[in-house]
């Protein structure tokens, strides 16, 4: 186990590798602070959309209704299995001006490339499938009998979710949220095609690498790791503590 853990964490050794003096803001076009701000604000928005749209879908899928659930689940799975770069290209084509929806969006003033809206939409596309699948598993783990008993005690469906399903599934839902967060924040392949601007952290790291090499990459890389990792950890710890206190 120790050897495995050390092997798993070995890439972090890269942070201590001498690459020359780290270059901070000012020396690099497109500042580090702006990339961090873009990534954090827009990812929070994308995750909120994931929760709002994905939770009802996950709940629906977690309550077996025969064959149709298999079809819906397969549709969700396709979004997860699609390679990000391919998804990015498909998104730009599908929302492009030559398509009905893309043309209409442009007519009403909604840009379909290189805008915060497109950035968020792309993040939602790449992360919501992961959120739904993990949330579905968490919700499905709550015994249906508990929900039925709660219903028989007079609770309508949303109240059953609020008082029984959600509290019992929150640890798994937190894991789903963490997964979606990391997936959305770290997305590069799809975002670079659909929303090169405004540059989030992954795109900015790539730009820095191209323009100024590793010294310009390292500061943003550290910030990237520090922003990507603590939130899932924190959510996980809070949910675990609440669940053990309950």
């Amino acid at each position: 186990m120790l050897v495995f853990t050390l092997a798993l964490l070995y890439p972090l050794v890269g942070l201590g590798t001498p690459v020359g003096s780290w270059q901070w803001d000012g020396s690099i076009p497109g500042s580090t602070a702006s990339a961090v701000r873009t990534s954090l604000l827009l990812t929070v928005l994308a995750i909120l959309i994931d929760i709002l749209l994905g939770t009802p879908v996950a709940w629906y899928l977690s309550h077996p209704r025969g064959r149709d659930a298999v079809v819906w689940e397969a549709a969700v799975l396709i979004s997860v299995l699609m390679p990000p770069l391919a998804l990015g290209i498909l998104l730009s084509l599908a929302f492009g001006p030559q398509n009905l929806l893309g043309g209409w969006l442009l007519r009403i003033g909604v840009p379909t490339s290189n805008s915060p809206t497109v950035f968020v939409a792309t993040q939602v596309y790449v992360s919501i499938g992961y959120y739904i699948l993990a949330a579905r598993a968490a919700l499905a783990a709550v015994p249906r009998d508990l929900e039925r008993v709660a219903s028989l005690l007079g609770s309508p469906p949303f109240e059953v979710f609020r008082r029984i399903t959600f509290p019992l599934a929150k640890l798994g839902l937190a894991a789903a949220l963490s997964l979606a967060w990391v997936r959305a924040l770290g997305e590069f392949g799809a975002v670079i095609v659909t929303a090169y601007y405004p540059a989030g952290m992954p795109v900015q790291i790539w730009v820095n690498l191209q323009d100024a090499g590793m010294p310009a990459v390292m500061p943003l890389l550290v910030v990237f790791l520090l922003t990507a990792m603590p939130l899932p950890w924190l959510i996980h710890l809070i949910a675990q503590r609440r669940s053990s206190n309950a």
Partner: protein
Amino acid sequence: MLDAHIVKARRTFTVDVRIQLQPGERLGLFGASGAGKSTILSCLAGIETPDAGEIVFRDHRLFPVGLPLYQRPLAYLTQSDWLFPHLSVADNVCFGIKNHNSDGTEEWIEELAKRLDLTSLWNESARQISGGQARRVALARMLARRPQLVLLDEPFTAIDRSATNDLISALLDWHAALGFTLIAVDHRTEILEQLCTRAAVVESGRVVQEGSWSALAAAPATPQLARLLAGK
């Protein structure tokens, strides 16, 4: 009044029974394991949907196209307790109470807690209590809403004999006070005899005999029933 005709296919037979009960009547469903007794309760409660038939209780149509579970004026104690593990005993018992200030609710909950010996466990987590205690909490939770129809499936499993007698006596007192209609399933005739005035014997999904316990004992309709009664 409860008027139910339930048709529900099982793996090896089809449950097809008609149950008619006057308000406040107490019926014991008796029979061997796997005879379809729990299926009948489950269909009455709405957990399972019958394949055909009709269920009407008082003014409420329960099947077909019946009330959703949360609007049914009934309480169902299943074989498993299904306590909400993240809640305390108190929160489990009071789960279905919408208005604690309504007429006599506080006193009723107090009475349930006292009579079912839950006072000392009141603030314990439902995860922490024993099997017998959990059964009593499930019983209290079911009765807290003062239901009109009570369905009991093996209500006293995990409870010792003397405590069972106390609980039966409490249930009969509450029946007298609330006037609920009661249907109980148990494999022990001595429990059903104390709890219910009438019996319906179920074999392979059909009611093969109905009547008082003494009539059943005097002339069992089938050899299987005779064997079950002799083995009590």
